[in-house]
Structure formats: structure tokens, C-alpha cells
């Protein structure tokens, strides 16, 4: 049995789950319905699966960063100086803005990031719904930090701070926050980011600071008179964590396959998600999509709900075990564990989705 090492990302797992429970209880006390049981269970499972995959993917990012920093790192940074950390966080967040914007505006990167937006709900569990396939492109955007010589440990810590900050903004329970809205990403301006209302599309990409959105003209304020509708215009209709990561890839390749020339095939991958061969890139308005097709989410059998809950608790336990002992595992064993987790989620997710569809047919 490999030795168990308690790392910060292990501590994060129960904290995040507790946060979800706290928000759920608070929302009940405030008589607000912001949770759909199976949707949230799916979000958490997607998050757990992404941790299995990204635990290895993050190593690749950190490795690339460390190598480039070693080769090209220009300046020496004093780690005891708070300004080092503040500068690194601000610069990291600036690069995050571009990672995030690219994740929305370039189709093959949207294919990864879409997972995070595939929930019809907006709550702390949505924050956990992270893609398992995004690590392949994100690292390159942070290389300017490496060239400036910011040490890898600073990069990892500010990256974690940036990521964890973004958890609390995924809530409907906090209103507008006055002057803070001008500087920081808040629940209000992040709700806009997750909305599919026409005014919300491609807005508010910031991670910690919304200043970048204001500078690059991608900022939009929440409109009180127009309630935000969350999720994807074309709904996922699946509880499968693996399919939620792959459905858009499949759709994108299918679309590319239908094109009769190479130019259009390439455009399917590199143009905006709404691109069509006739040359238009403007997203279709929300009014063109059905608004009352949330039947799928509202008719989940109890057996699926219970097995979903059991699977979540069990996989969270396995994730903690995996994260704590992976340092002692060979790369092959790590890949085997991650693959096993993905396959298990794929199988169970398939059974859940089929069960739900069968219930609807009955």
C-alpha cells in the first residue's frame, strides 16, 4: 500500500463539498430553489472525474512551466516580498482572462470548456463542474510568467488562489456588491457569464479581477429586469460525466466531416462556436431555442438519485485516496487509475441517462 501524503488539493475536496451543502441549506432557509439534485450530483461527479484526469494533466503544465522558467526565466524574484505575489496573481489573472476568452471564442477550446457551462443550474456545484480535457492548451498562455522568471511554486500557488476564488462567485444567493463590482469578479457579474440570454453571450471572462473585461470591452452588468437563464442553448440531456466532456468534440468532428473543403473543415475547429459555412459567426438568439425542455432534469427516478449520491461519496473517497498516494505511484499506474475512474463514470453515467430516458418514455 503506497504511503498517504496529505496535500492541499486533498483538503480542498471536503471543503468544496461542505460549501455545496452550506449553500443548499442556506437556499432552503431563504426559500430559494437553486439546486436540482441530479444536476448537482452530476456537476460534482464531473468535478471529481476532472481531478482524476487533471492530477496528471496539471503535472504536464507544471513541468512545461518549470522547464521554460529554467531555460528562459529572466528575473530573480524575492519570495518574501508580498509585491512578488501580488504581481504574480495579477499577471496570472490577466493571462487567465485570455485562456478563458479563448475557451469561449475558439471552437476547439470551447469543446473543452463547454463542460463547465453545461449545467442548467448556477450554484457552488457548478463551480466544481470542470472539464477534464482543458489541460492540453491552457499551459501555453501562462508561459509569459515563466519567461519573467516567476518561480513555479509561486505560479502554482497563485493559480490555486485564482481557481479557489472563483468558487464563491458561482451562487445566486449573493446580490450586487456595490463598488466591488467595478474591480472584482462577483456573483452578480459571473452570473452574467453563465447566462444564455443574448446580452450574456461572450461576456465577463475575468477570474479574480473584472478589470480585464472592462479594458477589453467584454464586460456586461447583470440586468435586474431580465432574469438570467443558465446553461447551454442546446441542452445536454445527460447525466454522464464523460459524455458531458466529449459531446461537443463529437459534434465538432461531425460538423467538420460534413464540410466539402479543407478551409471549412479547419474553420469548424478554429472559428467561433457559432460559425457556419455560410460565413456567419453570430450566435443564434435565445428566442430560437425551446424554453420549456427541462423535463429531463425534473423526472429523475429515486434509484438514480440514490445511486448518484452513493457514487459521488464513494468516488470522492477514492479521489482523496488517489491524490494522497499518487506521489508514490508510477506514471503508468496513475494513468491506469485515472482511466479506470473515467471508464467507471462513463458506464454509470450511461446507466443513469438511460434510466432517466426510460422513465420519461413511461
Amino acid at each position, binding site marked *: 500500500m503506497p504511503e498517504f501524503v496529505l496535500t492541499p488539493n486533498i483538503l480542498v475536496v471536503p471543503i468544496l463539498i461542505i460549501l455545496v451543502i452550506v449553500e443548499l441549506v442556506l437556499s432552503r432557509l431563504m426559500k430559494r430553489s437553486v439546486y436540482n439534485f441530479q444536476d448537482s450530483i452530476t456537476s460534482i461527479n464531473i468535478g471529481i472525474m476532472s481531478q482524476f484526469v487533471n492530477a496528471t494533466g496539471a503535472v504536464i503544465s507544471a513541468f*512545461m512551466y518549470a*522547464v521554460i522558467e529554467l531555460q528562459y526565466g529572466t528575473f530573480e524574484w524575492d519570495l518574501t516580498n508580498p509585491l512578488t505575489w501580488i504581481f504574480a496573481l495579477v499577471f496570472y489573472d490577466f493571462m487567465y482572462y485570455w485562456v478563458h476568452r479563448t475557451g469561449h471564442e475558439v471552437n476547439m477550446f470551447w469543446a473543452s470548456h463547454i463542460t463547465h457551462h453545461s449545467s442548467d443550474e448556477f450554484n457552488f456545484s457548478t463551480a466544481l463542474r470542470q472539464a477534464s480535457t482543458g489541460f492540453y492548451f491552457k499551459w*501555453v498562455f501562462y508561459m509569459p510568467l515563466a*519567461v519573467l522568471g516567476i518561480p513555479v511554486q509561486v505560479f502554482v500557488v497563485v493559480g490555486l488562489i485564482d481557481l479557489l476564488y472563483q468558487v464563491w462567485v458561482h451562487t445566486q444567493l449573493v446580490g450586487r456588491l456595490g463598488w466591488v463590482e467595478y474591480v472584482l469578479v462577483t456573483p452578480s457579474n459571473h452570473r452574467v457569464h453563465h447566462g444564455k440570454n443574448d446580452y450574456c453571450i461572450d461576456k465577463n471572462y475575468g477570474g479574480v479581477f473584472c478589470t480585464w473585461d472592462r479594458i477589453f470591452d467584454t464586460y456586461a452588468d447583470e440586468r435586474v429586469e431580465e432574469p438570467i437563464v443558465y446553461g447551454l442553448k442546446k441542452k445536454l440531456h445527460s447525466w454522464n460525466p464523460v459524455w458531458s466532456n466529449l459531446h461537443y468534440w463529437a459534434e465538432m468532428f461531425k460538423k467538420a466531416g460534413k464540410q466539402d473543403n479543407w478551409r471549412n473543415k479547419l474553420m469548424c475547429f478554429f472559428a467561433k462556436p457559432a460559425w457556419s459555412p455560410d460565413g456567419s459567426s453570430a450566435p443564434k438568439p435565445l428566442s430560437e431555442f425551446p424554453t420549456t425542455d427541462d423535463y429531463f432534469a425534473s423526472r429523475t427516478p429515486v434509484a438514480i438519485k440514490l445511486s448518484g449520491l452513493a457514487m459521488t461519496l464513494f468516488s470522492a473517497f477514492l479521489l482523496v485516496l488517489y491524490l494522497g498516494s499518487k506521489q508514490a505511484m508510477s506514471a503508468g499506474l496513475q494513468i491506469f487509475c485515472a482511466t479506470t475512474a473515467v471508464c467507471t463514470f462513463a458506464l454509470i453515467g450511461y446507466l443513469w441517462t438511460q434510466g432517466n430516458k426510460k422513465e420519461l418514455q413511461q
Partner: protein
Amino acid sequence: MNSLAVTDSLLLLVTIMIAAGAKYPPSLRLSAGIFAAAALLGVLRFTDLLPLPQMHAFFSSLGATAAYPLLAAGFIWSGSVLAQRWRFASIFFVIAGASGLIASALEFALWGNLVALLSVAALATHAIIVKDIQVASGAAALLVALILFASKAALPPYLQAGDFLHVFMALGLMLLSRRGAVSSGVT
């Protein structure tokens, strides 16, 4: 001040003029911008004003692995969105740059030289096939720059290999920019 500072200043001047020129297509301006950053760092380094050798090496490597292919692709497919739109030129640049960084991490030192050489050779071949004398002469100047630099050609004590690279690059880019300014239209 050594000769490298003078010739890098020449390259800086030419690349800034192209990068700032609104009449040039984005692929050419973006490539020139990267070359300009490398040249600026070169000037600062060789004049001893602000020597940042690692950053200079990084931008030079980025120029070789990403700016040369972008430049070549922008001329070969001059009417394409890659040449004519910032968005696609930037995506190409990021992907080519990323592949260069991966090669660098894997200690494949020849990658940059290889990519730059192949890009310029492809551009020259294309120009010859379409009988575009101006692009062909620009590509030839770039080819000479790369070959002289790779073969460490020098005229001691006056000119170093880097000087040949800077001068012929400036010449090549100037010739290409004259052609780049007239091509337009997105397909």
C-alpha cells in the same frame, strides 16, 4: 557599441515599420512584431543598456518557431483568413509557439532552425512556382540570413554571424513587405 547592436537596430527599425503599418496584413504585422521584440531585446543587450539574454533568447526562439511559419503561411495563402484576420493569425501563432516550447522542453534544439528554414524554403518555392519575383527575392534574402547564421559565417573583426542574420532579415522583410502591402481580400 558593437556591430550586433547596429545591425539589430536596423532590423528593429524595419520590423517596427511593418508591425505598425496598417496597410499590411495581420499575419505579416504579427510576425514582424515578434521579430521587433527580439530585435529590441537584442539592441538593449548588445548596447549594454539593459541586457536580458534569456528573454532575448526566448523571443528569438519564438521568432524561429512561430513567426517564420506565420510569415510564410501568410504569403503562401495570402487571401486566407490566416493572413487577413488577427484572430486566425494569433491562433496559428499560439499553436506554432506552443509546439516550439514543447520541442524546447524536450531539448530538441534543432526544431527552431528546422522550422524557420523549412518555412522560408516553402515560401521561396511557392514564390518561384507562382513567378512572384518580389516575394522570391525576399524569401531568398531570408534564406541567406538563416544559412549564414547557421554556418556561423563572419567577417572578423567587422561582422559576426548575427550581423548577417540581422541585415539579410531586414532586407528580406523589407522586400516581402512591399509585396504584402498590395495583397488583400479574404477568401
